[in-house]
């Protein structure tokens, strides 16, 4: 799922990460985000990727990568091993988003999680007007072939964080590359952000 916009999203994610941090990118794709963060933030990066072709690409780039599954293989890391964990556009494709989130905040001091916002107005409109499952740039699969299992809205995500006692520290608005402190649910975000991006943590 290469839904990520390298120019936009990488920069916003990089802004959240201090220099020399240790980072694991879960669902790291071909390793390009890790490469970007290595170049601009000199991170000590690790990847996890389920698709072997992409694992091979990472290996050839010199990125340390585990062929593994976010649902089952995050248990192998000790508590707070990393400064940051990153999960971009993967949460909705996991079998258990809840346990994956719990694992992310366990293995890292802070987690950056992004996902397509199913509460976006266009999606609502598509359902309301066309009675069709939405297909867009960010949600590029038809309902019968999608690897996505658990769509959620920004508000659903915020509720889940509350339930899991995960603290949301910052939110990102990828359309205008803005980061801001989180201060509760917000009508505008949930309607107009195509992507939810949050910095979360749990002590």
């Amino acid at each position: 799922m290469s839904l990520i916009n390298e120019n936009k999203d990488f920069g916003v994610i990089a802004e959240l990460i201090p220099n020399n941090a240790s980072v694991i990118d879960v669902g790291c794709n071909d390793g390009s985000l890790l490469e970007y963060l290595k170049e601009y933030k000199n991170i000590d990066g690790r990847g996890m990727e389920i698709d072997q072709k992409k694992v091979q690409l990472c290996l050839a780039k010199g990125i340390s990568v585990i062929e593994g599954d976010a649902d089952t293989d995050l248990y192998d890391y000790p508590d707070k091993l990393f400064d940051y964990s990153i999960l971009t556009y993967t949460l909705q494709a996991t079998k258990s988003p809840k346990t994956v989130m719990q694992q992310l905040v366990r293995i890292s001091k802070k987690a950056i999680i992004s996902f397509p916002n199913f509460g976006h107005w266009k999606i609502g409109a598509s359902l309301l007007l066309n009675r069709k499952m939405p297909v867009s740039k960010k949600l590029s699969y038809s309902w019968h072939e999608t690897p996505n299992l658990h769509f959620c809205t920004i508000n659903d995500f915020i509720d889940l964080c509350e339930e899991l006692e995960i603290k949301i520290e910052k939110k990102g608005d990828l359309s205008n590359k803005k980061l801001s402190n989180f201060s509760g649910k917000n009508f505008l975000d949930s309607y107009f952000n195509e992507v939810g991006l949050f910095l979360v943590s749990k002590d």
Partner: protein
Amino acid sequence: MSENKIVTLAEDEPLNLDGGGSLSKFKTAYTTYGKLNDKKNNSILVCHALTGDQYVASDHPITKKNGWWSMVVGPDKPIDTNKFFVICPNVIGGCMGSTGPKEINPENGKEFATDFPVITIADMVRAQKLLIDYLGIEKIFCVTGGSMGGMLVLEWLSKFPEMVHSAVPIATATNHSAQNIALNELARQSIMADPNWQSGNYYHSDKKPMKGLSVARMAAHISYLSKEALQSKFGRNLQDKNSLDYSFDADFQIESYLRHQGFTFVDRFDANSYLYITRAMDYFDVSSSNNGSLIEAFKNTQSKILCVSFTSDWLYPTSENKKIVKVFNSLGLNVSFIEIETENGHDSFLLDEPKFFEAIKGFINSTFENL
């Protein structure tokens, strides 16, 4: 092509062994490929498996076949000898020129036979370290090997972490399971049950324990293949006949194949070596000198590591290889892991597996570029 070289090591002080006792002035037979560069930072140590030897990429002097990893090591191969200086020693206890049971004991001028001390994987690694010292290499760029070779890699990472820049342990384990030990015991018992074994003193006899060694190899060979591979290769096909013979001849192709594997093996391998090396594998537990803690065993390791397993390998399955990855992860090491999908079983690391080759090549070349 590389010539076989033999060097005498531990000339000044003996190599002390885990089981007590020592070896002094022991021989190591080895081959090298490519050239050591001026910075001496391009060496790759290849560790062979149980029945492997130093002929990693050159024709075997007895079987005349290609080296056991000639698909991996050579010019423009995944381990490119245009770029790297590859070293492959025969382990001590082996039978291709390194000191082992069939070599002459300098103390009495006779073959060691079963007077050879029982050795461990760590002893083999300490012996290899003396060879690396002799070659004037302070830091090996990469140590790699599959199966028992992988155990040697793990022992290198544990015993001499400062000497290993990167490592690729393949299809291996941190210790032998009860099942692994059981299979080796079956092999040893079949050798020792052969009357021609003569308590190991068969070197000057006309009768050699060929049947016992052959059966040992047959049993082991089954463990190197997967059920699926055996089934698709042989099924219940008959060997050169259309109906059953109602005898104990090799009716089935699989029987004939295994017998062939057994017969050809005895020409190139020493029965006593088989006893000693399988024993070393059974004794292997990389955590044993650290109170059973794998974390302790690798606490000084800083190397960049790629672990590889194969889906159909039931001898050293993915679960065992993942155990190694988990330990390296816990220590925050730069570890990568890849599981190659194949039906070729444990033997996959010796066969034509393009995805496996791609992974090794990608890891080794990118690691070298970032040196």
